[in-house]
């Protein structure tokens, strides 16, 4: 009979960029159960909505996470705008979309680098992050911040991009796409990567739905679900389709993210080609009163923003359900049956963001 033991994993571990702890129940080297534990970086940011003006709170929403900064700001603003019945100028919608897609490229390249690092493929890690620098430079040029930046406001955006800036972004995207080709080939074709990822941590489609998976994790199991299809921001004007794979393993999750980078390049170019002129924000009068659930597709998956307002400048409630909150339960399922040595890589393939999750 196999010897049963409990091995603590994390909160500090070489593959974990953020703290999460797991109690792994092992039978010899095989994981038979896992209990996740968070709570190392809870900041109570949702509670702050009671003390900050609903317009000021945008800055806090943008600081929920370092990687999804733009998306959280946009999700919060769009939910408040919906409650207040504000129609945001078309140009602002396009600008939000461009920054969102840049954020997706940034997030996925960051994850690809971490994945390569976790596999011990250091040159691939450095290539991924070298490419990511170009996106960070674009953020710097367009917003003044490289990772966390404030561009959203209730009623539109705070910053505009002139035509020279948009042309420069289009050129950079073209360059990056060319640079992506060898990276793409290595991640999808290299023997080392395939042997490490194929067949590892398989999440069948029915389990992905039952366990509430979102984003690339859900789409890698064959479910065609991408919230951008709802057409928020400028997505209704763009050619968006969910990127899917069917194997449901770690390799499929990697494949979906790689293809989403290429899709984001195309969407950025399309948005730059279609962006109309005009104002970037509208004046906001009065206070919100009502409630709304807003969904947006963050790089890690569907995020849900709930606001409840009472007609004063302070909201009653702001709730953010982040993608990682939804991806932790399926991750626990994935770990059951795997080998202890595969645990770090499987955890990494959900692209966990714990600061988002804990808020």
């Amino acid at each position, binding site marked *: 009979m196999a010897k049963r033991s409990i091995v603590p994993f994390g909160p500090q571990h070489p593959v974990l960029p953020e703290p999460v702890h797991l109690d792994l129940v092992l039978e010899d080297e095989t994981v038979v159960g896992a209990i996740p534990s968070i709570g190392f970086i809870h900041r109570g940011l949702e509670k702050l909505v009671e003390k900050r003006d609903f317009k000021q709170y945008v800055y806090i929403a943008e600081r929920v996470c370092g990687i999804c900064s733009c998306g959280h700001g946009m999700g919060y603003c769009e939910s408040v705008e919906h409650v207040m019945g504000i129609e945001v100028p078309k140009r602002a919608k396009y600008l939000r979309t461009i920054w969102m897609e840049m954020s997706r490229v940034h997030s996925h390249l960051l994850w690809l680098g971490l994945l390569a690092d976790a596999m011990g493929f250091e040159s691939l890690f450095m290539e991924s992050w070298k490419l990511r620098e170009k996106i960070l430079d674009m953020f710097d040029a367009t917003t003044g911040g490289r990772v966390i930046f404030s561009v959203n406001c209730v009623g539109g955006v705070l910053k505009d991009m002139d035509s020279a800036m948009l042309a420069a972004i289009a050129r950079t995207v073209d360059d990056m796409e060319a640079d992506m080709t060898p990276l793409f080939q290595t991640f999808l074709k290299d023997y080392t990567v395939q042997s490490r990822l194929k067949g590892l941590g398989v999440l069948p489609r029915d389990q992905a739905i*039952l366990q509430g998976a979102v984003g690339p994790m859900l789409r890698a199991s064959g479910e065609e*679900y991408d919230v951008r299809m*709802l057409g928020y921001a400028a997505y209704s004007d763009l050619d968006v389709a969910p990127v899917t794979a069917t194997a449901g393993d770690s390799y499929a999750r990697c494949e979906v993210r790689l293809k989403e980078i290429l899709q984001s390049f195309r969407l950025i170019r399309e948005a730059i080609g279609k962006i109309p002129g005009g104002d970037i924000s509208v004046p906001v009068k009065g206070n919100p009163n009502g409630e709304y*659930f807003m969904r947006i597709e963050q790089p890690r998956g569907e995020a849900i923003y709930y606001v409840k307002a009472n007609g004063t400048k302070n909201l009653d*409630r702001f709730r953010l*359900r982040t993608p990682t909150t*939804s991806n932790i339960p399926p991750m626990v399922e994935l770990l059951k049956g795997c080998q202890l040595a595969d645990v770090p890589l499987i955890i990494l393939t959900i692209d966990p963001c714990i600061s988002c999750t804990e808020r």
Partner: protein
Amino acid sequence: MDQKNEIREITRDVFFATVIRMKMELWRLVQICAVRVEGGYDMSYSFCRNYEMVTLRLHVKEDEEISSITQVYPCAFLQENEAAELFGVKIRNLTVDYRSKLYRIDQETPFKEKG
């Protein structure tokens, strides 16, 4: 694409049966949210199928105990623990019960009172 995004008020006596039906009809649980209201809480359980979203709204009195839906949707355990720890919602039969230690905070039910 303009899809349904509705909130349905629901009573306790039909709540669990409705959640089971949602699962049978392949709705995905997407979020659980507690909101403090006078005399208790509003618990919102949102489900998605394709791009439709339906939120079941259950009013819970402050001292009332509700059943966990983790028996039906196992993935609910994190968000139900959060509602219990931050708001003080009394939830029984959680499959994984962190007993108010999910966020490791010193203050008890910080979201229960405003301010």
